[in-house]
């Protein structure tokens, strides 16, 4: 009897060790940086591509996907599964702080959803500038992430710039008379609306900080049940604490490109989602312009890149980010990769360190290829080593290197 028990126990141990051989990494956080993460995830697999991915057509804009394959240099012959569900920078940090489980897609199409606490998250802003400042994580800067303000199809072409002081009042009220933005008294009766993200967004944190905004903003959203109207967003989309606003940059981009919208509106976006609004010249994966007067507009008098006139041309696949690099344009932040402190020598730690270098390599390749390939372009972030200025905090002063 004892022998049987021993054999059974050994068998159990073997089964357990076999099961542990598989490596599962759960990624959450920033929606604005998801394109870069997608490319880095792909590149980490042997041969630069996973064996399988669900959904099969997942790409740089996909918010939830699962990829599987091998990464010989890290884990030998073990099967590695990367689960990704981008839910917002701040929310990702909150998930790590509170050990909150998220729902991920099964690698098998149609398979049961997988529930797990994320092991790595991405944040567009330092954790110290978020509501999850006490999250017990190792934080590493991996890139510079530019953000932009976009105008929707109904916004007059004369709106080419928005200032931080205009934004302060615009966020406080949700809408202001259009003439403030066009400089034309004939637009006194017109209304400029503002849309934006909920509190789980790093883009929102960065935008507010950079404009020295202190307050609780009113945001408008496109009302799908009453077409043609902008309506105050007062329904929580993801929990009480996360407040009102779109839960992803992609959803906000959809609102900003809606041709049925009843009036002018501006909002902030990460550059990847902004390309949905404005179009890009990337030849590998051309983006369709949102139409009408959709365009990126200047912020405090500067655009984030040169050789672009709002509304007159698509965004270059590899923009000249000189205004950011030199310190003229300030709406940017350090993209951070976050890992729980408890992972110091395990498989998650290996993947974390690999990912840090992988993301930089991805950006390098994107630049080498000029953004003109479906794999590497368009370029929507900057390498840390390119910067000739720095800042000590989100929205903080910008100092030459």
């Amino acid at each position, binding site marked *: 009897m004892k022998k049987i028990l021993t054999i059974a126990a050994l068998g159990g141990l073997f089964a357990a060790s076999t099961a542990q051989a598989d490596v599962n990494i759960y990624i959450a956080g920033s929606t604005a940086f998801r394109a870069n993460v997608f490319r880095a995830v792909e590149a980490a697999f042997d041969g630069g591509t996973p064996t399988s991915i669900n959904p099969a057509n997942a790409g740089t804009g996909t918010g939830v996907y699962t990829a599987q394959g091998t990464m010989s240099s890290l884990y030998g012959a073990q099967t590695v599964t990367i689960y990704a569900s981008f839910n917002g920078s701040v929310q990702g940090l909150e998930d790590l702080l*509170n050990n909150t489980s998220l729902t991920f897609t099964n690698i098998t199409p149609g398979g049961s959803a997988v529930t797990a606490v994320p092991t790595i998250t991405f944040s567009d*802003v330092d954790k110290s*500038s*978020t*509501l999850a*400042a006490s999250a017990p994580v190792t934080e590493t800067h991996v890139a510079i992430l530019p953000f932009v303000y976009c105008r929707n199809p109904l916004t007059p072409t004369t709106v080419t710039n928005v200032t931080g002081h205009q934004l*302060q*009042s615009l*966020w*406080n*009220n*949700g809408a*202001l008379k259009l003439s403030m933005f066009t400089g034309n008294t004939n637009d006194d009766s017109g209304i400029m609306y503002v849309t934006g993200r909920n*509190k789980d967004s790093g883009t*929102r*944190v*960065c*935008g*507010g*900080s950079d404009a020295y*905004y*202190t*307050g*609780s*903003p*009113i945001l408008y959203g496109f009302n799908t049940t009453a077409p043609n109207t902008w*309506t*105050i*967003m*007062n329904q929580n989309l993801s929990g*009480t*604490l996360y*407040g009102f606003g779109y839960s992803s940059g992609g959803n906000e981009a959809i609102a900003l490109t809606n041709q049925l919208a009843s009036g002018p509106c501006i909002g902030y976006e990460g550059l990847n989602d902004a390309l949905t609004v404005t179009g890009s010249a990337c030849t590998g994966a051309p983006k369709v312009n949102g139409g009408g007067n959709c365009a990126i507009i200047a912020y405090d008098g500067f655009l984030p890149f040169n050789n672009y006139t709002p509304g007159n041309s698509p965004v270059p696949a590899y923009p000249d980010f000189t205004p950011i690099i030199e310190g003229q344009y300030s709406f940017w932040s350090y993209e951070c990769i976050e890992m729980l402190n408890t992972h110091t020598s395990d498989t998650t730690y290996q993947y974390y360190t690999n990912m840090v270098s992988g993301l930089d390599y991805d950006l390098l390749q994107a630049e080498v290829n000029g953004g003109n390939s479906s794999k590497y372009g368009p370029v929507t972030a900057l390498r840390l080593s390119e910067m000739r200025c720095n800042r000590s*905090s*989100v*929205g903080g002063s910008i100092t030459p290197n």
Partner: protein
Amino acid sequence: MKSYKLAILTAAAGFLWSLSAPAQTFNYNNGDLLLSLRTPGGNSDLIVDIGAASLYANATGPITISGNYFTSSQLTDAGLGLNNLYFSVFGDISPGYPGTANTLWVTDPQSDNLVEATPWTPQTSANQGNTRAQMESIAYGATYTSFTEAASADNTISAVIVPSSLNISGEGALSYTIGIGPNGNFNGNFGSNNDIEQDTTATFTSGTSPVRTDLFEMTPGSSGTYLGYFELDTDGTLTFDPQPVPEPTTLAAFGMGLIGLAGWRRITRKS
């Protein structure tokens, strides 16, 4: 027997979870009035939800705030005393909620206890919107703090102690101390000279004179409707006394007086 043990364990686990799990205890709703208390240089503020503004606009008799909406222990645990105490009451209607958007309720401190404070200068809806955003941030800071802490005697449905330094960049000034600013005017958003805070002296509790602050309802573009006043007594009792509403008999007597006065004038003119 096993299931009995399991039930006990489950209950115990549930109890332990309830002790440690974060829960949003503080219950703020748009249109509520917040009583906010601080001491300059203090580490904590006490934020008290004293109910819907309509409760005060429609009050027909005194409302006792202390003891009902917050306790003296909460005040003590926040590091606050009755001396050198700064406090205000405010509330708003955010766009999208019932009522006139950017309507504000704000206190206006009396300089003495006999003269009603001068109503605030009318402001546009957009200007009041700037103040509204500051008020909502303070409310969010209280809600957030309550969420991150377990329910306790210091974290209740109507009152919560908030760190006076709670200020998350991009999320706004989430503490009362930072949001109201050093001059009690929401960092100038309510008007550079419009200090809505009442304060007590360093020897307040040694005296017998209470302090009062008036409550005004400000729909955009109006100078405000006087609703009554809050009175803080030296023993810590805080009450709201509504604007006296003339009773029907009083009105009738007043009307009779007017008629009498008119008749007397006619008589004197004829003579």
